[in-house]
C-alpha cells in the first residue's frame, strides 16, 4: 500500500467491486501509454540534474527583440521593469484566484481592474477574470454560443488562427458541433457571400479574427449584416483594439483573445492568458470567474467573486462550464502592464507597430516580393516569397533574425508565403538589415 493513500486493500477491493471493475489497472486501460512503458531513468543527484538542465538551456537561441519579425499569435513587445517587479510580489504570485478569495482583497481588486480594462478594450459589457489562453478562450466561446441558442453548426473563418481552430475542434468533439470553414476573398477578408450561403437553421455561431491570422482587418459590419441571427464571436488582438473600432460597435456577442501582448514574455509560446468578454444578457452562460465590486455592512468598498452559482464547485455537473478557474497571475500582469502604459501609451505602441509593419511591407515589396492580399493590415501581413522560403527562414535564423513565419507550416496553398510582423520593438536599422539578408545571395 502506498504510504500516503490511506485506503486499505480491502477498501480498494470494495470500491472496485462497487463499480464492477476487477483490477485497478483496468481503470487506466483507456490511457494509451502506461507508467510502466515510460522507461523513466533512475533518479540523479541535484548537482547533476542542474548541470544537465543548464546544458540543455544553453541550446536556446536568444533572438534580440528588434530582430523578431514573427507574430502569428505571440508578439514581441517591450515590457517595462515595473511590471516585473509589481507582478512578482508574493501577494500576487498564484496561478489561480486564491482559496478564501475574499481574504485576498488585493488580488480580487487587481482582477476587477483587469476585467474593467478588458471591457474598455473590447467595448463589451462584462469580462471574466481570464481563461487559459486565446485558443481555449475561443473554444469556450463556441461552447457558450451553443448554450445560448442550442444550435450546432459553427461557421469559422479560414483566417482564424489554425491552432485556435484545432483547439476548438478538440474541446467540442464530444458536443455534436460541426465546423465549416469560410474561405477568404482576394482582399484576405472572410468571404461574406459564401458566409451568407452557408447559414442554415442549425447555424450556431460565426467566428472572425480581428485583425485576422493574415493580418487583415476584417469588415465586421459586413459580417454582422449577413449573420445577424448567429452568435457573433470575435477573436481580437489587444493592441489592435486600441486603434480599431471595438468589436462591440459591430454587434459582437463574445470577444476573446490572447493577453500575451500585454506584458507577458514570448517564452517559447507560453504560458499566456486568454481574455473573454460578452454582453450582460449572456452573462449566465459565460464560463470563468467573475469578480465584482460591492460594499460591506459598514459601507466600505470590497471585492467578491460573483455569479458562482454557474460554477462547477456549486453546480457540479450542471455547471455552465468546467472552467471555473483563471490565470490570475497572468491576468494581473496584463492589468499592471495596461495600467503602466495607460490608454495613450497603448495607442502609441499600436501606432508605432503599425508604422513599423508598413515600413517593413514597403521595403519587402521594393525587393520585388508581392503581398498576398490587398486588404488593410495592422501589424502583420502575408507576402509571397519563393518555394524554398522554409530553408531561407532557417538560414536567416543562423544570422540571429527570426524571419516572418513560413505559411507553409500551416497552409498547403500558401507554401511560398510568409506572415511578417513588426511591433514597436523593431527599428528602422533592424528592418533594413532583415530586408538586406532576405535579398542576399545564398539565402
Amino acid at each position: 500500500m502506498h504510504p500516503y493513500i490511506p485506503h486499505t486493500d480491502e477498501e480498494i477491493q470494495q470500491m472496485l467491486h462497487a463499480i464492477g471493475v476487477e483490477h485497478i489497472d483496468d481503470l487506466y486501460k483507456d490511457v494509451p501509454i502506461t507508467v510502466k512503458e515510460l522507461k523513466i531513468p533512475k533518479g540523479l543527484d541535484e548537482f547533476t540534474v542542474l548541470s544537465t538542465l543548464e546544458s540543455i538551456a544553453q541550446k536556446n537561441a536568444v533572438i534580440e527583440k528588434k530582430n523578431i519579425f514573427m507574430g502569428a499569435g505571440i508578439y514581441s513587445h517591450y515590457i517595462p521593469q515595473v511590471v516585473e517587479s509589481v507582478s512578482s510580489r508574493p501577494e500576487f504570485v498564484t496561478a489561480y484566484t486564491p482559496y478564501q478569495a475574499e481574504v485576498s482583497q488585493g488580488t480580487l481588486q487587481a482582477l476587477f481592474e483587469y476585467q474593467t480594462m478588458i471591457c474598455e478594450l473590447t467595448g463589451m459589457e462584462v469580462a471574466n477574470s481570464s481563461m487559459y489562453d486565446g485558443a481555449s478562450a475561443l473554444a469556450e466561446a463556441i461552447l457558450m454560443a451553443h448554450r445560448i441558442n442550442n444550435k450546432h453548426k459553427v461557421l469559422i473563418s479560414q483566417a482564424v488562427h489554425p491552432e485556435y481552430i484545432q483547439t476548438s475542434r478538440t474541446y467540442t468533439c464530444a458536443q455534436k458541433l460541426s465546423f465549416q470553414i469560410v474561405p477568404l476573398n482576394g482582399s484576405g477578408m472572410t468571404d461574406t457571400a459564401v458566409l451568407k450561403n452557408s447559414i442554415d437553421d442549425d447555424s450556431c455561431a460565426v467566428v472572425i479574427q480581428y485583425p485576422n491570422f493574415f493580418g487583415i482587418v476584417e469588415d465586421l459590419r459586413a459580417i454582422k449584416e449577413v449573420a445577424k441571427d448567429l452568435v457573433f464571436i470575435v477573436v481580437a488582438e489587444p493592441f489592435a483594439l486600441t486603434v480599431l473600432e471595438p468589436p462591440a460597435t459591430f454587434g459582437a456577442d463574445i470577444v476573446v483573445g490572447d493577453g500575451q501582448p500585454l506584458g507577458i514574455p514570448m517564452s517559447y509560446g507560453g504560458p499566456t492568458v486568454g481574455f473573454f468578454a460578452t454582453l450582460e444578457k449572456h452573462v449566465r452562460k459565460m464560463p470563468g470567474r467573475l469578480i465584482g465590486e460591492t460594499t460591506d455592512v459598514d459601507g466600505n468598498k470590497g471585492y467578491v467573486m460573483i455569479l458562482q452559482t454557474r460554477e462547477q464547485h456549486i453546480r457540479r455537473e450542471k455547471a455552465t462550464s468546467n472552467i471555473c478557474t483563471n490565470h490570475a497571475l497572468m491576468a494581473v500582469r496584463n492589468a499592471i502592464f495596461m495600467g503602466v502604459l495607460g490608454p495613450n501609451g497603448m495607442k502609441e505602441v499600436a501606432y508605432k507597430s503599425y508604422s513599423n509593419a508598413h515600413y517593413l511591407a514597403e521595403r519587402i515589396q521594393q525587393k520585388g516580393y508581392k503581398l498576398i492580399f490587398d486588404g488593410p493590415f495592422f501589424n502583420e501581413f502575408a507576402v509571397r516569397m519563393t518555394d524554398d522560403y522554409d530553408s531561407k527562414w532557417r538560414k536567416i535564423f543562423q544570422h540571429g533574425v527570426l524571419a516572418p513565419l513560413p505559411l507553409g507550416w500551416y497552409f498547403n496553398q500558401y507554401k511560398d508565403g510568409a506572415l511578417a510582423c513588426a511591433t514597436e520593438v523593431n527599428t528602422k536599422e533592424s528592418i533594413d538589415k532583415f530586408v538586406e539578408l532576405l535579398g542576399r545571395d545564398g539565402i
Partner: protein
Amino acid sequence: MMKKYAKTHEWVQVEGKVATVGISNFAQDKLGDVVYVDLPQVGKVVKKGETLMSIESVKAASDVYAPVSGKVLQVNEKLNDQPELVNKDPEGEGWLVKIEMTNPNELNELLDEGAYKKHCEEEE
C-alpha cells in the same frame, strides 16, 4: 381548472392539453430571493421528471423538473426582467412555462392540494 403538484414542488394547472407550470409557494419560500430565472427555449421537449430549467436564488441555483412530459409552448418572458415575481406570486403571475402535454395520464401520478400540503409538512 385542475391544479396538481409534484413531490419536487412544481405545480401544474391544466387547460385542455396545455399545462401551465410553476413552483409552489413552499418552494419559493425555501429558495429565498430569486435573482434569475433560466427559462428553457420554446420548443424544448421534456420528459416527466427531467430537468426543465433552473432558478437561481441568492442561496443556490436549483433545477425545476418537468411535472409532465411534452413540448414547451410558451415561457413567462416577464421573469427575464422581474425574477422576483416567482417570490411574490409563485402560483399566479410568477408562472414559468406552458407545456403541451403528450401524455395527460401522467397527471394522475401528481398530488392534489391536500396531499401536497401533507408532503410539505413531512419535509419541514
